[in-house]
């Protein structure tokens, strides 16, 4: 973790044993840590005075494995980084390799990438909100509603990519397979139904007094800290920074769509929660336009070799606006079949670095809410 100076920590440690403190290890079997994650929390009553995130329980050596295997062989592993958003991880990795090898992507594939990425965003945000409400103690109801919608999107993924979660769909220079017959129409139906779910969610939760009381003013991440901690995605935007890679990089064909980037002013859990709701509404707009405009044509550059793929020596960094924030892959090629260096910039991990800052002074019950509002997936944090 980032060392953030001594003053408060020293003060906490100097408190001695009978300062009424209780050390609690939340995790790794705690029900609300979203995976195997541990927080060593020091409590005064129920107030958090120190919090140390401990992770690495799910470390699978992803980056070193990638340096041993072929470029293509890493693609299915990227599915398993953020297992909620395999398609965006796929895309970021494909983008990095395409930059490295100088490949162009057919237009239809670009559209398919946008469509799958935005569908991923929809289901990720829906589920994140559901999980967060679950952490708030909402007995699974919002989560089940989110899962109900997610099922429909996963069905789309399954008929497009063959798998519901581990899609392994993007390839260097395009997408693995074209949409099967009727898929675009089915996607249109799902996207058309989605606002109904958003309205339902909003009615259930957005003005719920308990949700407001539990999340407003809780886990505030100030603007400067958000920028300096290199936060990204909804966590950064909730702190008042209108930074969205879809707008700044205009990668893919995002410049062809009209969408807005919602920004929060308070940087608290409620802002992070509501921003995801608003982002989903924008994603629906993108999806409707993309499904309307998608051109015919090939979905992959036929000249790209699958086997013995050896990009020229060099380095590249490909990044996209994943649902959780900036997901990026940094690759160094020495001209061989596997990357010389392979590095993931996981948004979950980097957003998590500000966790202690957000949690200090809050109640122990808020810790799980704050953690839920950051939206982490341990597969990506630990890699």
């Amino acid at each position, binding site marked *: 973790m980032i060392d953030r100076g001594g003053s408060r920590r020293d003060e906490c440690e100097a408190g001695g044993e009978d300062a009424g403190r209780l050390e*609690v290890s939340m995790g790794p079997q705690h029900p609300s840590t979203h995976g195997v994650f541990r927080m060593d929390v020091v409590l005064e009553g129920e107030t958090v005075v120190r919090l140390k995130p401990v992770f690495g329980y799910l470390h699978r050596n992803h980056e070193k494995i990638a340096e041993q295997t072929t470029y293509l062989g890493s693609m299915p592993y990227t599915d398993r980084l953020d297992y909620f958003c395999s398609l965006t991880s796929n895309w970021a990795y494909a983008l990095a390799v395409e930059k490295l090898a100088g490949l162009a992507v057919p237009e239809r594939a670009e559209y398919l990438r946008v469509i799958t990425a935005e569908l991923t965003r929809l289901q990720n945000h829906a589920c994140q909100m559901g999980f967060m409400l679950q952490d708030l*103690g909402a007995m699974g109801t919002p989560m*089940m509603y989110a899962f109900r919608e997610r099922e429909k999107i996963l069905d789309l993924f399954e008929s497009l990519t063959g798998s519901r979660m581990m899609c392994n769909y993007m390839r260097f220079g395009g997408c693995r397979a074209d949409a099967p017959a009727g898929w675009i129409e089915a996607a249109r139906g799902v996207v058309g139904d989605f606002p109904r779910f958003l309205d339902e969610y909003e009615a259930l939760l957005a003005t719920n007094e308990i949700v407001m009381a539990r999340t407003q003013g809780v886990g505030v991440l100030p603007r400067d800290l958000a920028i300096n901690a290199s936060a990204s995605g909804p966590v950064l935007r909730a702190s008042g920074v209108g930074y969205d890679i879809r707008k700044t990089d205009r990668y893919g064909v995002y410049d062809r769509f009209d969408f807005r*980037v919602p920004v929060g002013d308070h940087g608290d859990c409620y802002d992070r929660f509501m921003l995801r709701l608003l982002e989903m509404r924008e994603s629906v707009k993108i999806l409707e336009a993309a499904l309307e405009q998608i051109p015919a044509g090939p979905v992959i550059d036929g000249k790209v070799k699958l086997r013995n793929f050896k990009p020229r020596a060099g380095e590249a960094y490909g990044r996209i606006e994943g649902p959780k924030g900036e997901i990026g892959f940094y690759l160094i090629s020495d001209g061989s079949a596997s990357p010389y260096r392979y590095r993931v910039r996981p948004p979950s991990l980097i957003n998590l670095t500000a966790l202690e800052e957000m949690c200090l002074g809050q109640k122990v019950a*808020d810790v799980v809410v704050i953690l839920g509002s950051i939206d982490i997936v341990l597969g990506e944090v630990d890699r």
Partner: protein
Amino acid sequence: MNMEGILALTGWGGLRWVGPVELFERGPVWLRDWAVGWLPEGAKVWAEGLIPAVAVLAVFGLLFGLATVAERKLLGRIQNRPGPNRVGPYGWLQFAADGVKMLTKEDVVPRSADRVLHFLAPIVMLAPVALSLAVIPYGRDLVAADPRCGLLFFFAVGSAAEVAAFMAGWSSRNKYSLLGAMRAIAQMISYELPLVLSALTVVMMAGSLSLVEIVEAQSGYWWGVIPRWHVMTPWGLAGLLLFMAAAAAASNRAPFDLPEGESEIIGGFMTEYSGFKYAIFFMGEYFGMFAVSGLAVTLFLGGWQAPLAVLEAAPSYGWFFLKLGVMIAWFIWVRGTLPRLRVDHLLNFGWKYLLPLGALNLLVAMVWRGLGGWAFPGAGAVRWLACLAMIGLPAILWGRLLMRSRGWGPRVYRYAS
């Protein structure tokens, strides 16, 4: 129920023809008298106490089983899934399977736990709650015990639950248990007051602490149609809402289920319990919910009184259990809808919101009684609305003030240029 059909034993030895209405209404009482009649003189006084006790425990034991299934099914439906549907017809025997599972599970006691207290805590939790079921009138003449201070008895025995929570939390030697116990105690103490205060309103209006008399005070109908239940008055309506909020907290139900808030402190004071001890805690919790629901029905919803004169043909205990079922469904609905409060919000809500409103409601009840003398045309409606405004407007305004003073409210979001 008597098997002779319409020709029934009315008490010991008295055979006579009775109609089905009377049979169902009086049947349980006759059955008890009949059974007691067999016994020798010395045993009669014991049997008269034991038989109702066993009957109450049996009925509520079954209800506990059914309520767990109903809760899971209703929650499932709220969440668009079917809920348990495998064991028995439509899954209604799920509780039996759960019971067997609980009974055969290993009973794990932490090594450093205080074994005696750890063992006693579930019993101390369940026993007083079961005791409090004794004073609730389930039907006409159907009450296990009718002490003169029935309501006081209810709250008095209920206070042992706090001790049980403490015993469980402390003896487990687990930090989460300790946190849960502290939360449980703080919560139960805080919410006992608004609970008692809203019940006090009824006591004041009915002029009795006996629950049987409180139910009888609610008999009759206004203009022959509207039952004279307390909930039909403004103070009764407000009292019911306050009572239900406080009751949810006192029985650790959502959204006040902080003592076991599973997303925060795992299982609270029940973290280290497993197997049958856990089942007893669970049972105590449900019995507590039944008890406060039954009390709410008794205090505000007319107890076993039928809602309409023509419906009085149905047995009175049927009405009671119907109302109890509605209450339980309400608790389940709340659980399926609301997120949990935080501990400081909970205490603030109890002390700063429910308690003042409970006191105000007492005042409103007095005003209601004072305005009873009005005799001009439309006086009833004016009285009703005036009293409702007296409690409703402060409730809304005070709530708004409390929310706004902390800056809580809906927000408007901007978009990056």
